[in-house]
């Protein structure tokens, strides 16, 4: 990268000569700077994204060769007597699992409101609430697997016994497994939301509150008419990012339930994994990936629209 005395980019654009001269040294250098990122993006993001769509049109059971079947994989997923119920169940499970996002949002907002005070030791509490978020999901899942142990010596079961409630099978119970996963997800994800909310809360000018207090507004009125509307964009951001992450959730499901019992915790992301890496049906897995992609794209698009709104807001 020689970038010394003569600045070629300053030359008039009609300049004739070799292409790098016409382009200008700066353009050439800039693309050199972008090259490492570009190579990685093209190889591991753009090409796979397109390849995914292509593979979804093939029937490909891994050791054997792929052959073109058009939209058969999609049709199977939607209508086949055996495939479709599994697919739709996973589809619903995905949204069931995503219920954790609004729950998380409400709890984190309440805690953030609590922590948004200048009292001694508040930093220690913020640290505490943030700790689960930075701990690896695999480690945390293992710990919760132990907390949810179905025997009487499992911690949660021992609490149930102390309260006189019969012990539960938790993760091995088709009805309870999903709520258990959601509960753990809320615990794990809370810290991130709290940090974002605290940043949002601290961005609200204190003069607004002071003015309202002089007018005799109640604490609830302060929240309803100042905090809530000003926090709106933050809430929306947390909601969409949470939904996106929830749709992609994998680790906790793999460590804690492997999609069971009876498929009660199989989400689309997990169904995709099972099809690709346990049944080696690459075509079907890719079809699920494309559907997941569309759902994620929709969410991202909503989120980008919100960015616009935020700009107008300020």
């Amino acid at each position, binding site marked *: 990268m020689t970038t010394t*005395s003569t600045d070629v980019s300053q030359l008039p654009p009609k300049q004739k000569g070799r292409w790098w001269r016409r382009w200008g040294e700066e353009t050439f250098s800039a693309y050199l700077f972008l090259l490492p990122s570009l190579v990685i993006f093209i190889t*591991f993001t753009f090409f796979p994204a397109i390849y995914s769509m292509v593979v979804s049109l093939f029937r490909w059971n891994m050791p054997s060769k792929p052959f073109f079947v058009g939209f058969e994989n999609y049709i199977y997923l939607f209508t086949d007597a055996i495939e479709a119920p599994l697919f739709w169940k996973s589809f619903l499970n995905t949204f069931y699992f995503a219920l954790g996002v609004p729950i998380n949002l409400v709890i984190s907002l309440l805690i953030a409101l609590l922590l948004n005070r200048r009292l001694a030791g508040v930093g220690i509490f913020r640290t505490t609430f943030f700790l689960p978020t930075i701990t690896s999901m*695999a480690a945390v899942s293992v710990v919760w697997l132990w907390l949810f142990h179905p025997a009487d010596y499992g911690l949660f079961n021992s609490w149930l*016994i102390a309260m006189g409630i019969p012990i539960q099978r938790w993760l091995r119970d088709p009805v309870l497994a999903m709520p258990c996963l959601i509960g753990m997800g809320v615990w794990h994800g809370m810290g991130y939301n709290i940090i974002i909310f605290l940043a949002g809360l601290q961005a609200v000018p204190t003069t607004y509150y002071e003015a309202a207090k002089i007018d005799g507004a109640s604490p609830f009125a302060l929240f309803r008419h100042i905090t809530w509307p000003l926090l709106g964009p933050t809430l929306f951001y947390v909601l969409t990012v949470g939904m996106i992450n929830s749709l992609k959730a994998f680790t906790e499901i793999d460590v804690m339930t492997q999609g069971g019992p009876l498929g009660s915790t199989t989400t689309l992301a997990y169904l995709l994994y099972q099809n690709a890496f346990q049944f080696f049906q690459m075509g079907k897995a890719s079809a699920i*990936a494309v559907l997941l992609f569309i759902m*994620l794209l929709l969410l991202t698009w909503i989120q980008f629209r919100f960015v616009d709104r935020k700009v107008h807001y300020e």
Partner: protein
Amino acid sequence: MNNTTIRSIHRSRHSWARTRKTLLDILWYVVVTFLALCVMVPFIWMIVTSLKGQNEIFTYPPTWIPQDWQWKNYVDVWQEAPFGRYFLNSTFVALMVTVGQLTSCILAGFAFARMEFKGKNFMFLLFLSTTMISSQVTLVPSYLIMRSLNWIDHYQALIVPFLANAFGVFMIRQSFRSVPREMEEAAKLDGCGRLRFLVQIMLPLCKPILASQALFAFMGNWNSYLWPLIVTNQDDMRTLQIGLRYFVSGEGGTKWGLYMAAAVLVSLPVIIIYFLVQKTFVESMASTGLKDI
């Protein structure tokens, strides 16, 4: 305290307000401490269990303080699985990804922040669009690419796909733009080349953002699970997170004491880093959340 409290209520409304505030503060501490304890229960339980013997683990009611402290668990865990190897793998991969990703992000960030070139807007949109394509979508094809490159069970598979990060590029670009342009012109006049300017002037000025990006790259990679699970089959290529997954032993059921000791070891490095650079950590977390596109 009660006596003085009651007296002060009688004395004046002003001190009543003060007492009320003190009481509210105490209530606040009680509530927040309770919530914090609830949040800490899994961590406490993990550590307590990791120090118990197998017999004590399987007794009801569970005990919060081990009767017989089994520090031995932390030694035994290294024999139970090749944890040393897992540690090495995770550390090596995470460090390589951090260094590589930061380098590519700095270069691209500089181009977007400080250079004018044909197709800049298009390139920017192209980078932006990668944030919309999630890893789940590219999972199968990426795996197929790894297979055809014969990279399965090699470090390349764990490192190379993560050597670019659009979010990192945007964050670094943002911080580069805050460096005054006059500085660059002055450097140019003194005969300082672009690359030298970037390395010797820009980077030192933007240390905080670089630190937080490095932190994120390291942490994200250290904690990653799905991709290493797919591209590694051999035991000696597994990372810590995956090693943990396979830590379910045969006879006499799962050895929960060892299992929890392993979980402690896996989560400890990131927690230590977090305590060391807490401020950078939290601030960058909040800023990636809000300022970024």
